[in-house]
């Protein structure tokens, strides 16, 4: 029983050293990288962080998958942040570009750039874990590290992109449109149209929560006994060093920030 199924996951099978690493090491990587992006304030450092994430994604062979999953949203986000911060950010600032009555201000653009780099770093670091780790391995690692099975379950159930959920959403839309619900028209009408679509989803989950909890109980999910793990998760020889390095990087970044250099 080896995990090979990738349907319903974002997981991309691969043979890179990132794939081979133990999930906890990857989680540590993501946590350290995200923490660094929050600690650092200067643009060159933020850019370097973002670049490092790109390198890891590339080495893991999931760069394309990452772009497929995020590019559209990242481009949109960048555009909106640039426009809103660049045009409307309060306070005195040099003007970078004058287009008719609108003036794009330097301070705003710089702020937008740092926000974009931060978000990119966070999303990228998170996706390094998600794209290179099978969800089942991720949860097994978390549980073996001592977390409650409930935490693992919640995480895994959230990560599973079950086709049934998509199917169900489609059925709800069909059912309500058949009852004359208009999903086009003015913004107000569309907003009103959301209630009949979200309502059944909400009640449906409430209804199935009890049945699911019963099923999990009957299948021994909440038992206090020690679980058997059919699959074993291996640590690579280089991982202890990598973990120490990650810790050192974080400490280093904090020190630089305190000194005001980062």
């Amino acid at each position, binding site marked *: 029983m080896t995990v090979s199924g990738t349907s319903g996951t974002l997981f991309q099978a691969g043979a890179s050293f990132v794939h081979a690493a133990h999930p906890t090491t990857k989680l540590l990587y993501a946590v350290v990288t995200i923490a660094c992006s929050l600690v650092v304030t200067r643009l060159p450092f933020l850019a370097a962080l973002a670049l490092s994430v790109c390198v890891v994604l590339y080495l893991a062979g999931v760069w394309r998958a990452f772009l497929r999953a995020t590019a559209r949203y990242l481009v949109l986000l960048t555009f909106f942040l640039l426009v809103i911060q660049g045009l409307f950010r309060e306070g005195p600032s040099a003007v970078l570009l004058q287009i008719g009555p609108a003036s794009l201000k330097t301070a705003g653009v710089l702020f937008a750039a740092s926000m974009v780099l931060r978000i990119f770093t966070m999303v990228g670091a998170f996706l390094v874990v998600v794209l290179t780790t099978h969800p089942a391995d991720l949860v097994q690692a978390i549980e073996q590290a001592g977390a409650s099975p409930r935490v693992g379950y919640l995480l895994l159930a959230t990560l599973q992109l079950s086709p049934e959920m998509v199917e*169900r959403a489609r059925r709800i839309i069909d059912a309500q*449109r058949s009852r004359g619900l208009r999903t086009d028209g003015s913004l107000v009408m569309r907003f009103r149209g959301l209630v009949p679509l979200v309502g059944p989803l909400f009640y449906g989950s409430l209804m199935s929560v009890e049945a699911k909890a019963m099923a999990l109980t009957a299948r021994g999910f909440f038992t206090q006994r020690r679980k058997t793990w059919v699959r074993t998760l291996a640590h690579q020889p280089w991982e202890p060093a990598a973990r120490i390095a990650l810790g050192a990087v974080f400490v280093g970044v904090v020190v630089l920030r305190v000194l005001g250099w980062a």
Partner: protein
Amino acid sequence: MPIEVRQVSYAYASGVRALADVSLRIGDGERVAFVGQNGSGKTTLVKQFNGLLRPTSGSVWLGGADIATQRISDLARQVGFAFQNPDDQIFRNSVESEVAFGPFNLGLRGASLQAAVDEALGALELARWRDEHPYTLSYAARKLVCIAGVAAMQTPVLVLDEPTTGQDRLGVERIEHLLAARSERGTTVLVVTHDMAFVARNFDRVIVMSAAQIHADGAPSEVFWRDEVLSGAGLEPPPVVRLSQRLGGPRFWTVSGAASALQPRLPDRTSKSTLSEEAGT
């Protein structure tokens, strides 16, 4: 409101062909049952009638008009469609307001809205639960609420997808009463179902679908006797049909039909004496 399907083909985005050059005419006020395995195309076909799915090629005509350019929300005035799973549509916090959602969307207000809701609740004997939260009711009752919600739209065409699943005898009888009442008013009643006994009791026309095409279309007295078509579609006729096939003579396809056909053929001796003899041996 006649429905005409002209050489309709339909392929899902995945490339799966669900309808292959299907043509069909359903006259005003007909009662038609669509039967077939899951994936045979029967639900895909009825979803063309209210524009939920649009033909990849071919056209669908409703009351003499091509529906290609009509919005689903407008087609909802012509074709009421009750889905299989009530939990895919119930969202209001009382049975009454849930049933009112459809007719309200069609523009009914005030007394006429109330009348439509009352009529539907009455037809399915749900009136005593009108103030209940739908999710406090059983699955079977929620399903009736869902059917009432579509019936209250009082459309000239009524489509029900698997109405009898999970229903006990009383529930099935309520649905049958509703269908009979609507038929009497000239409503075209269409159903998609696996329940062959229900089909036999209530429908004059049975359409057998398999592998994206119509394989038989006719009265139960004809379609249920086409063994090769039924088994090819993975279907079994009701046991009374099996009996009728083996006995020959005038065909029957419902239990009550069988009882009146067989009554005259009963042996002189009553079944009781036959039995006591059997028991004695």
